[in-house]
Protein backbone atom coordinates (compact mmCIF):
# COMPACT_ATOMS: atom_id res chain seq x y z
CA UNK A 1 0.00 0.00 0.00
CA UNK A 2 1.35 3.34 -0.98
CA UNK A 3 2.06 5.85 1.73
CA UNK A 4 0.68 9.20 0.66
CA UNK A 5 2.84 12.23 0.37
CA UNK A 6 1.77 15.82 0.29
CA UNK A 7 1.31 17.56 -3.07
CA UNK A 8 4.45 17.34 -5.08
CA UNK A 9 5.75 20.68 -6.26
CA UNK A 10 8.10 21.03 -9.21
CA UNK A 11 8.80 24.60 -8.26
CA UNK A 12 11.06 23.70 -5.35
CA UNK A 13 14.32 25.51 -5.96
CA UNK A 14 17.33 23.25 -6.36
CA UNK A 15 20.19 25.31 -5.03
CA UNK A 16 23.66 24.74 -6.37
CA UNK A 17 26.65 24.03 -4.16
CA UNK A 18 27.60 27.67 -4.03
CA UNK A 19 24.16 28.86 -2.95
CA UNK A 20 22.79 28.60 0.53
CA UNK A 21 19.90 26.17 0.78
CA UNK A 22 18.18 28.42 3.26
CA UNK A 23 15.22 30.58 2.36
CA UNK A 24 13.19 32.99 4.44
CA UNK A 25 9.80 31.63 5.37
CA UNK A 26 7.08 33.29 7.40
CA UNK A 27 5.15 31.06 9.78
CA UNK A 28 1.83 32.47 10.92
CA UNK A 29 0.96 30.57 14.08
CA UNK A 30 -2.37 30.70 15.87
CA UNK A 31 -1.46 31.51 19.47
CA UNK A 32 -3.76 31.00 22.43
CA UNK A 33 -2.89 31.21 26.08
CA UNK A 34 -5.86 31.31 28.47
CA UNK A 35 -3.60 32.77 31.17
CA UNK A 36 -2.86 35.80 29.02
CA UNK A 37 -5.93 36.43 26.92
CA UNK A 38 -9.25 34.78 26.14
CA UNK A 39 -8.69 35.61 22.48
CA UNK A 40 -6.57 33.59 20.09
CA UNK A 41 -4.27 35.67 17.89
CA UNK A 42 -2.04 35.10 14.90
CA UNK A 43 1.66 35.61 15.43
CA UNK A 44 4.23 35.78 12.62
CA UNK A 45 7.69 34.24 12.87
CA UNK A 46 10.35 34.70 10.20
CA UNK A 47 12.80 31.86 9.81
CA UNK A 48 15.83 31.08 7.70
CA UNK A 49 15.22 27.45 6.90
CA UNK A 50 16.01 24.78 4.34
CA UNK A 51 12.81 24.17 2.37
CA UNK A 52 13.53 20.44 2.47
CA UNK A 53 12.94 20.49 6.21
CA UNK A 54 9.56 19.76 7.75
CA UNK A 55 7.06 22.08 9.37
CA UNK A 56 7.88 20.37 12.66
CA UNK A 57 11.53 21.43 12.31
CA UNK A 58 10.34 24.99 11.83
CA UNK A 59 8.20 24.77 14.97
CA UNK A 60 11.21 23.41 16.85
CA UNK A 61 13.30 26.33 15.62
CA UNK A 62 10.65 28.75 16.83
CA UNK A 63 10.33 27.07 20.21
CA UNK A 64 14.05 26.58 20.79
CA UNK A 65 15.41 29.82 19.34
CA UNK A 66 12.66 32.43 19.16
CA UNK A 67 9.81 31.88 21.61
CA UNK A 68 9.94 29.14 24.22
CA UNK A 69 6.31 29.61 25.09
CA UNK A 70 5.08 28.10 21.80
CA UNK A 71 3.25 24.93 22.77
CA UNK A 72 2.60 21.92 20.58
CA UNK A 73 2.55 18.15 20.84
CA UNK A 74 5.02 15.83 19.21
CA UNK A 75 6.57 12.59 20.30
CA UNK A 76 8.26 10.45 17.70
CA UNK A 77 8.51 13.17 15.03
CA UNK A 78 8.41 10.53 12.30
CA UNK A 79 4.73 10.10 11.45
CA UNK A 80 4.08 7.10 13.69
CA UNK A 81 2.83 8.38 17.04
CA UNK A 82 0.19 10.75 15.67
CA UNK A 83 0.79 13.52 18.20
CA UNK A 84 1.40 16.46 15.91
CA UNK A 85 -1.69 16.66 13.71
CA UNK A 86 -2.37 20.33 13.04
CA UNK A 87 -4.03 22.57 10.52
CA UNK A 88 -1.28 23.71 8.16
CA UNK A 89 -2.35 26.13 5.41
CA UNK A 90 -5.97 25.24 6.19
CA UNK A 91 -5.51 21.50 5.81
CA UNK A 92 -5.09 18.88 8.51
CA UNK A 93 -1.67 17.28 8.28
CA UNK A 94 1.09 15.87 10.44
CA UNK A 95 3.72 18.57 10.96
CA UNK A 96 6.39 15.85 10.91
CA UNK A 97 5.36 14.57 7.47
CA UNK A 98 4.90 17.93 5.74
CA UNK A 99 7.93 19.32 3.91
CA UNK A 100 8.07 23.10 3.72
CA UNK A 101 8.80 23.02 -0.02
CA UNK A 102 5.54 21.16 -0.62
CA UNK A 103 3.29 23.88 0.81
CA UNK A 104 4.41 27.01 -1.06
CA UNK A 105 6.90 28.70 1.28
CA UNK A 106 6.69 31.96 -0.71
CA UNK A 107 3.51 32.88 1.15
CA UNK A 108 3.14 32.84 4.93
CA UNK A 109 2.47 29.30 6.14
CA UNK A 110 -0.42 29.24 8.61
CA UNK A 111 -0.26 26.75 11.46
CA UNK A 112 -3.18 26.35 13.84
CA UNK A 113 -4.70 23.77 16.15
CA UNK A 114 -7.06 21.14 14.70
CA UNK A 115 -10.69 22.22 14.68
CA UNK A 116 -13.66 20.91 16.66
CA UNK A 117 -11.75 20.16 19.87
CA UNK A 118 -11.18 22.63 22.70
CA UNK A 119 -7.86 24.43 22.40
CA UNK A 120 -5.93 24.26 25.66
CA UNK A 121 -2.91 26.29 24.57
CA UNK A 122 -1.51 27.27 21.16
CA UNK A 123 -1.59 24.05 19.10
CA UNK A 124 -2.58 21.70 21.93
CA UNK A 125 -6.21 20.59 22.04
CA UNK A 126 -8.20 18.51 24.51
CA UNK A 127 -8.27 15.11 22.82
CA UNK A 128 -10.62 13.60 25.40
CA UNK A 129 -13.85 13.69 23.29
CA UNK A 130 -11.92 12.08 20.46
CA UNK A 131 -10.63 9.23 22.62
CA UNK A 132 -14.03 8.90 24.26
CA UNK A 133 -15.58 8.07 20.88
CA UNK A 134 -12.67 5.69 20.23
CA UNK A 135 -13.27 3.85 23.53
CA UNK A 136 -17.01 3.70 22.79
CA UNK A 137 -16.54 1.39 19.81
CA UNK A 138 -14.63 -1.15 21.95
CA UNK A 139 -11.40 -1.22 19.96
CA UNK A 140 -10.15 -4.58 21.23
CA UNK A 141 -10.61 -8.22 20.34
CA UNK A 142 -13.79 -9.74 21.82
CA UNK A 143 -14.50 -13.44 21.62
CA UNK A 144 -17.46 -15.39 22.97
CA UNK A 145 -15.15 -18.16 24.09
CA UNK A 146 -14.12 -17.17 27.61
CA UNK A 147 -11.45 -19.82 27.95
CA UNK A 148 -7.84 -18.98 27.38
CA UNK A 149 -7.00 -20.03 23.82
CA UNK A 150 -4.64 -22.99 23.63
CA UNK A 151 -3.29 -21.95 20.24
CA UNK A 152 -2.97 -18.91 18.08
CA UNK A 153 -6.14 -17.56 16.48
CA UNK A 154 -5.39 -18.24 12.85
CA UNK A 155 -6.63 -16.26 9.91
CA UNK A 156 -6.24 -16.58 6.16
CA UNK A 157 -4.37 -13.95 4.19
CA UNK A 158 -7.63 -12.92 2.50
CA UNK A 159 -9.35 -12.44 5.86
CA UNK A 160 -6.45 -10.30 7.02
CA UNK A 161 -6.54 -8.27 3.81
CA UNK A 162 -10.23 -7.43 4.40
CA UNK A 163 -9.45 -4.90 7.13
CA UNK A 164 -5.81 -4.15 6.29
CA UNK A 165 -6.47 -0.52 5.35
CA UNK A 166 -8.03 0.39 8.70
CA UNK A 167 -5.22 -1.17 10.76
CA UNK A 168 -3.00 1.73 9.67
CA UNK A 169 -4.74 4.32 11.87
CA UNK A 170 -2.42 6.15 14.28
CA UNK A 171 -5.22 8.06 16.08
CA UNK A 172 -3.85 11.48 15.18
CA UNK A 173 -7.40 12.94 14.89
CA UNK A 174 -6.67 14.60 11.54
CA UNK A 175 -9.77 12.97 10.03
CA UNK A 176 -12.20 13.54 12.89
CA UNK A 177 -11.16 17.17 13.27
CA UNK A 178 -11.59 17.76 9.52
CA UNK A 179 -15.18 16.51 9.56
CA UNK A 180 -17.80 19.30 9.37
CA UNK A 181 -20.36 17.12 11.13
CA UNK A 182 -17.96 16.68 14.05
CA UNK A 183 -17.33 20.45 14.17
CA UNK A 184 -21.02 21.05 14.78
CA UNK A 185 -21.57 19.59 18.24
CA UNK A 186 -18.83 17.01 18.75
CA UNK A 187 -21.37 14.29 19.39
CA UNK A 188 -20.77 12.45 16.11
CA UNK A 189 -18.51 9.44 16.68
CA UNK A 190 -16.22 10.75 13.97
CA UNK A 191 -14.27 9.00 11.22
CA UNK A 192 -11.44 7.75 13.44
CA UNK A 193 -13.76 5.85 15.79
CA UNK A 194 -15.59 4.31 12.84
CA UNK A 195 -12.31 3.32 11.18
CA UNK A 196 -11.23 1.55 14.37
CA UNK A 197 -14.61 -0.15 14.69
CA UNK A 198 -14.25 -1.24 11.05
CA UNK A 199 -10.91 -2.81 11.90
CA UNK A 200 -12.64 -5.23 14.31
CA UNK A 201 -16.05 -5.58 12.63
CA UNK A 202 -14.38 -7.06 9.54
CA UNK A 203 -11.82 -9.13 11.49
CA UNK A 204 -12.75 -12.80 11.13
CA UNK A 205 -11.36 -13.58 14.62
CA UNK A 206 -13.56 -11.03 16.38
CA UNK A 207 -17.06 -11.98 17.52
CA UNK A 208 -18.52 -8.67 18.69
CA UNK A 209 -19.09 -7.15 15.27
CA UNK A 210 -22.83 -7.15 15.85
CA UNK A 211 -22.40 -5.17 19.10
CA UNK A 212 -20.12 -2.65 17.44
CA UNK A 213 -22.52 -2.22 14.53
CA UNK A 214 -25.30 -1.55 17.01
CA UNK A 215 -23.20 1.13 18.70
CA UNK A 216 -22.54 2.80 15.34
CA UNK A 217 -26.26 2.54 14.47
CA UNK A 218 -26.70 5.28 17.06
CA UNK A 219 -28.22 8.68 16.30
CA UNK A 220 -24.67 10.05 16.26
CA UNK A 221 -23.24 7.03 14.48
CA UNK A 222 -22.46 6.33 10.84
CA UNK A 223 -25.73 7.81 9.54
CA UNK A 224 -24.51 11.31 10.28
CA UNK A 225 -21.74 10.88 7.71
CA UNK A 226 -22.38 13.18 4.74
CA UNK A 227 -19.59 11.66 2.59
CA UNK A 228 -17.74 14.96 2.20
CA UNK A 229 -14.45 12.99 1.94
CA UNK A 230 -12.64 15.53 4.17
CA UNK A 231 -11.46 12.60 6.29
CA UNK A 232 -9.99 10.69 3.35
CA UNK A 233 -8.16 13.84 2.20
CA UNK A 234 -6.86 14.54 5.70
CA UNK A 235 -5.59 11.07 6.63
CA UNK A 236 -1.77 11.16 6.79
CA UNK A 237 -1.72 7.36 6.48
CA UNK A 238 -3.74 7.27 3.27
CA UNK A 239 -6.59 5.26 4.77
CA UNK A 240 -9.71 5.35 2.61
CA UNK A 241 -11.77 6.56 5.54
CA UNK A 242 -14.99 7.41 3.73
CA UNK A 243 -14.93 4.00 2.07
CA UNK A 244 -14.57 2.32 5.47
CA UNK A 245 -17.57 4.28 6.77
CA UNK A 246 -19.58 3.26 3.69
CA UNK A 247 -18.67 -0.39 4.34
CA UNK A 248 -19.96 -0.12 7.89
CA UNK A 249 -23.21 1.41 6.58
CA UNK A 250 -23.55 -1.40 4.07
CA UNK A 251 -22.91 -4.01 6.75
CA UNK A 252 -25.60 -2.43 8.92
CA UNK A 253 -28.15 -2.63 6.12
CA UNK A 254 -27.26 -6.02 4.66
CA UNK A 255 -27.13 -7.73 8.05
CA UNK A 256 -30.62 -6.56 8.82
CA UNK A 257 -32.54 -7.43 5.72
Amino acid at each position, binding site marked *: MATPVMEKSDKAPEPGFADSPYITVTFRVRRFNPEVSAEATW*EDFQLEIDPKERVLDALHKIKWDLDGSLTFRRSCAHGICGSDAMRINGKNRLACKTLIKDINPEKPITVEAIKGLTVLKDLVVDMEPFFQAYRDVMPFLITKDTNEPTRERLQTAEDRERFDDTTKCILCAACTSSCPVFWNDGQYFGPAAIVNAHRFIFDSRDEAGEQRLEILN*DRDGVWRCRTTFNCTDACPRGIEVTKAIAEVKRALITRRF
Partner: protein
Amino acid sequence: MSTTETTASGIGPVEGAGASAYTVDNPAPLIEPPRKRTKKSPKSTRGNFEMAAWLFMRLSGVVLVVLVIGHLLIQLVLDGGVSKIGFAFVAGRWASPFWQVWDLLMLWLAMLHGANGLRTVINDYAERPNTRLWLKGLLYTATVFTILLGTLVIFTFDPNIR
Protein backbone atom coordinates in the same frame (compact mmCIF):
# COMPACT_ATOMS: atom_id res chain seq x y z
CA MET B 1 -2.15 39.60 11.75
CA SER B 2 0.54 41.38 13.73
CA THR B 3 3.11 40.14 16.14
CA THR B 4 1.66 39.88 19.62
CA GLU B 5 3.13 39.98 23.06
CA THR B 6 2.45 36.41 24.08
CA THR B 7 6.01 36.06 25.28
CA ALA B 8 5.34 38.46 28.18
CA SER B 9 3.99 35.83 30.53
CA GLY B 10 4.31 32.85 28.26
CA ILE B 11 5.70 30.63 30.98
CA GLY B 12 2.89 30.45 33.48
CA PRO B 13 2.51 28.58 36.73
CA VAL B 14 1.50 25.45 34.84
CA GLU B 15 4.95 24.99 33.35
CA GLY B 16 6.79 26.70 36.19
CA ALA B 17 5.35 25.04 39.27
CA GLY B 18 6.44 21.54 38.41
CA ALA B 19 4.55 19.94 41.28
CA SER B 20 0.88 19.63 40.31
CA ALA B 21 -0.15 20.49 36.78
CA TYR B 22 -3.78 20.90 37.77
CA THR B 23 -5.44 23.39 40.10
CA VAL B 24 -8.99 24.22 41.12
CA ASP B 25 -9.27 26.64 38.21
CA ASN B 26 -7.63 24.22 35.82
CA PRO B 27 -8.95 20.78 36.77
CA ALA B 28 -7.74 17.57 35.23
CA PRO B 29 -10.03 16.42 32.42
CA LEU B 30 -12.84 14.22 33.65
CA ILE B 31 -12.88 10.86 31.93
CA GLU B 32 -16.45 9.76 31.47
CA PRO B 33 -17.32 6.09 31.19
CA PRO B 34 -18.18 5.01 27.64
CA ARG B 35 -21.46 6.24 26.20
CA LYS B 36 -24.20 4.61 28.18
CA ARG B 37 -26.85 2.42 26.64
CA THR B 38 -30.04 4.30 27.39
CA LYS B 39 -33.67 3.69 26.57
CA LYS B 40 -33.19 5.72 23.44
CA SER B 41 -30.18 3.86 22.15
CA PRO B 42 -31.15 1.13 19.71
CA LYS B 43 -31.30 -2.36 21.14
CA SER B 44 -32.93 -4.56 18.55
CA THR B 45 -31.18 -5.65 15.42
CA ARG B 46 -33.93 -4.10 13.32
CA GLY B 47 -32.26 -0.74 12.88
CA ASN B 48 -33.50 2.62 14.00
CA PHE B 49 -34.96 5.86 12.70
CA GLU B 50 -31.66 7.33 11.48
CA MET B 51 -30.97 4.22 9.46
CA ALA B 52 -34.49 4.18 8.04
CA ALA B 53 -34.18 7.86 7.12
CA TRP B 54 -30.83 7.24 5.44
CA LEU B 55 -32.18 4.30 3.47
CA PHE B 56 -35.34 6.22 2.55
CA MET B 57 -33.25 9.01 1.03
CA ARG B 58 -31.48 6.55 -1.28
CA LEU B 59 -34.57 4.63 -2.34
CA SER B 60 -36.88 7.63 -2.75
CA GLY B 61 -34.12 9.40 -4.67
CA VAL B 62 -34.00 6.62 -7.25
CA VAL B 63 -37.80 6.57 -7.66
CA LEU B 64 -37.96 10.37 -7.80
CA VAL B 65 -35.48 10.50 -10.68
CA VAL B 66 -37.97 8.53 -12.79
CA LEU B 67 -41.06 10.33 -11.50
CA VAL B 68 -39.71 13.87 -11.76
CA ILE B 69 -37.98 13.50 -15.13
CA GLY B 70 -41.13 11.85 -16.52
CA HIS B 71 -43.23 14.64 -15.04
CA LEU B 72 -41.04 17.38 -16.51
CA LEU B 73 -41.00 15.70 -19.93
CA ILE B 74 -44.78 15.40 -20.05
CA GLN B 75 -45.45 18.86 -18.68
CA LEU B 76 -42.79 20.93 -20.39
CA VAL B 77 -41.33 19.16 -23.41
CA LEU B 78 -43.56 16.66 -25.17
CA ASP B 79 -46.63 17.52 -27.20
CA GLY B 80 -46.58 21.31 -27.34
CA GLY B 81 -44.66 21.92 -24.13
CA VAL B 82 -45.71 24.22 -21.38
CA SER B 83 -48.25 26.12 -23.52
CA LYS B 84 -50.66 23.18 -23.49
CA ILE B 85 -51.07 23.20 -19.71
CA GLY B 86 -54.40 24.53 -18.55
CA PHE B 87 -57.30 23.52 -16.38
CA ALA B 88 -58.55 21.15 -19.06
CA PHE B 89 -55.15 19.44 -19.38
CA VAL B 90 -54.88 18.82 -15.63
CA ALA B 91 -58.50 17.67 -15.43
CA GLY B 92 -57.89 15.26 -18.31
CA ARG B 93 -54.83 13.78 -16.66
CA TRP B 94 -56.37 13.36 -13.24
CA ALA B 95 -59.31 11.53 -14.74
CA SER B 96 -56.97 8.56 -14.99
CA PRO B 97 -56.05 6.72 -11.77
CA PHE B 98 -52.57 6.14 -13.19
CA TRP B 99 -51.71 9.83 -13.18
CA GLN B 100 -53.42 10.28 -9.83
CA VAL B 101 -51.12 7.65 -8.34
CA TRP B 102 -48.11 9.12 -10.16
CA ASP B 103 -48.73 12.60 -8.81
CA LEU B 104 -49.61 11.34 -5.34
CA LEU B 105 -46.42 9.28 -5.16
CA MET B 106 -44.35 12.19 -6.44
CA LEU B 107 -45.92 14.55 -3.91
CA TRP B 108 -45.31 12.28 -0.92
CA LEU B 109 -41.83 11.15 -1.89
CA ALA B 110 -40.60 14.62 -2.89
CA MET B 111 -42.00 16.26 0.23
CA LEU B 112 -40.62 13.61 2.61
CA HIS B 113 -37.29 13.47 0.76
CA GLY B 114 -36.91 17.23 0.90
CA ALA B 115 -38.09 17.48 4.50
CA ASN B 116 -35.70 14.76 5.61
CA GLY B 117 -32.85 16.46 3.80
CA LEU B 118 -33.64 19.77 5.48
CA ARG B 119 -33.94 17.99 8.82
CA THR B 120 -30.35 16.76 8.53
CA VAL B 121 -29.23 20.24 7.42
CA ILE B 122 -30.88 21.73 10.52
CA ASN B 123 -29.30 19.05 12.71
CA ASP B 124 -25.90 19.82 11.22
CA TYR B 125 -26.02 23.61 11.26
CA ALA B 126 -28.41 24.84 13.97
CA GLU B 127 -26.39 24.86 17.15
CA ARG B 128 -28.80 26.07 19.83
CA PRO B 129 -31.53 23.63 20.89
CA ASN B 130 -34.18 26.35 20.65
CA THR B 131 -33.20 27.26 17.10
CA ARG B 132 -33.39 23.60 16.16
CA LEU B 133 -36.79 23.23 17.78
CA TRP B 134 -38.29 26.20 15.95
CA LEU B 135 -36.75 25.43 12.57
CA LYS B 136 -37.83 21.82 12.73
CA GLY B 137 -41.30 22.77 13.97
CA LEU B 138 -41.65 25.12 11.00
CA LEU B 139 -40.33 22.46 8.64
CA TYR B 140 -42.66 19.72 9.88
CA THR B 141 -45.69 22.03 9.87
CA ALA B 142 -45.01 23.11 6.29
CA THR B 143 -44.41 19.53 5.19
CA VAL B 144 -47.57 18.13 6.77
CA PHE B 145 -49.64 21.03 5.45
CA THR B 146 -48.37 20.63 1.88
CA ILE B 147 -48.77 16.86 1.87
CA LEU B 148 -52.30 17.01 3.28
CA LEU B 149 -53.40 19.81 0.97
CA GLY B 150 -51.94 18.10 -2.10
CA THR B 151 -53.44 14.74 -1.23
CA LEU B 152 -56.82 16.36 -0.62
CA VAL B 153 -56.74 18.09 -4.00
CA ILE B 154 -55.70 14.95 -5.88
CA PHE B 155 -58.51 12.90 -4.36
CA THR B 156 -61.29 15.47 -4.31
CA PHE B 157 -60.54 17.17 -7.61
CA ASP B 158 -63.78 18.03 -9.38
CA PRO B 159 -63.39 18.72 -13.12
CA ASN B 160 -66.83 20.32 -13.24
CA ILE B 161 -66.03 23.04 -10.73
CA ARG B 162 -66.51 26.48 -12.19
